[in-house]
């Protein structure tokens, strides 16, 4: 039964669900990113780093930039959403987070189809992406 499903021309149910959620995540993420950027660029919300100073920031290494602007790395941006520049991180986080949601959504289908190896692989991927997103892993120059 599973083999027959595999060899069908149409995508399997887990693939269709993955695609649908990825599509929604992509549209929502991009839409929010563009709206928040307009708010930022047109000065509708005050930015944390003044726009006139931004060109002095991007020539520095990230270490110097964070030190100079007193910005904390990791998820500290969540606490700075009142600033126009940090508002843009909502859309970026949705774009970067969509894949994790997609994987979580297909695990029940894989389990239901007794596709245990792929269910484990999908769960492992969620752990890997979750670890990357967590901010636990820290590096620096």
């Amino acid at each position: 039964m599973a083999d027959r499903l595999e060899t069908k021309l149409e995508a399997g149910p887990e693939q269709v669900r993955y695609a649908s959620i990825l599509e929604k995540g992509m549209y929502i993420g991009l839409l929010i990113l563009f709206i928040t950027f307009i708010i930022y660029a047109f000065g509708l919300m005050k930015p944390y780093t003044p726009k006139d100073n931004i060109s002095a920031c991007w020539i520095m290494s990230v270490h110097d930039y964070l030190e100079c602007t007193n910005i904390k790395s990791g998820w500290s941006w969540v606490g700075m959403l009142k600033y126009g520049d940090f508002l843009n991180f909502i859309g970026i986080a949705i774009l970067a987070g969509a894949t994790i949601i997609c994987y979580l959504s297909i695990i029940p289908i894989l389990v239901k189809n007794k596709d245990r190896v792929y269910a484990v692989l999908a769960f492992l991927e969620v752990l890997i992406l979750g670890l990357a997103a967590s901010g636990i892993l820290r590096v620096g120059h």
Partner: protein
Amino acid sequence: MQKRTLVTLFSNLLMLFFLLGSPPVMAAAEGAVASSSQGHPWWFWPLVLLVVTFVMGIFAVLGGVGGGVLFVPIISGFFPFHLDFVRGTGLLVALSGALAAGPGLLKMNLASLRLAIPVAVIASACAILGAMIGLALPTHIVQISLGGTIIGICVLMLVAKKSELPDVSQADNLSSALRIYGVYREGSTGQIINWKIHRTPLGLGLFIIIGIMAGMFGLGAGWANVPVLNLLMGAPLKISVATSKFLLSITDTSAAWIYLNQGCVIPMMVVPSLVGIMLGSFVGVRLLAVTKPAVVRWIVIGMLAFAGVKAFLKGLGIG
């Protein structure tokens, strides 16, 4: 009439691409940077990014390469932005392209989730490692390595052949156990094609290196994914290209989170680059019908080689 308009538009874009890539303009850009990036209003460099990435998006489509692989060497080589932010932005550019293409490719069953899932586990874990290595190493070392990698990519683009339907006489044990096979309809002929893969352990092993490089340089990795999936593992070209594009949405996600959490993302760089590449890609797709891909491919390889040498010299403190 419409075709003539498109040809004229393409000719103008070609001139613009040459102009943007020409040494005098690059030197002028660098001069502007050297004199002081403070001398311009805040919108100057985002606007330049928008225009350059727009042209880049067109050539990425026509040249059959991803946006990330053009973005990182060109922007880091010739513009004032630090490599840390260029890599962060480059990953988000590549990620957005993959997110935009992925759902359609999955629904058409050209991108194979069964093929992508095991590969993604390895590639995304290694992309995290690559991102951490890339952010820990001194910038000039990364710049030299980036230059070497880009020159290597040019060589790969020149010598790598493609196989529409590789001959896989027997699937290997691992791919059989994982049931990595499928069927698709070839649009041009209507033919139903059954596919399977071989040399899976070796292919998965190579994704360790590909993942590390993708994370380290923020390049995306379509340039390496496709040859491994197609030539080594024997997946049909269409399946390889589609699965590779989808795979980037997973690999780049893991690396992008590392760059994001390290603070390497500046929205004033990211959004104009995303918009530019996306708009350029839309125009590129329309121009595809009236251009000679071989000529464009040579231009893209030439530009990449130039940017690779520039990155190499910049790392050595010469450029």
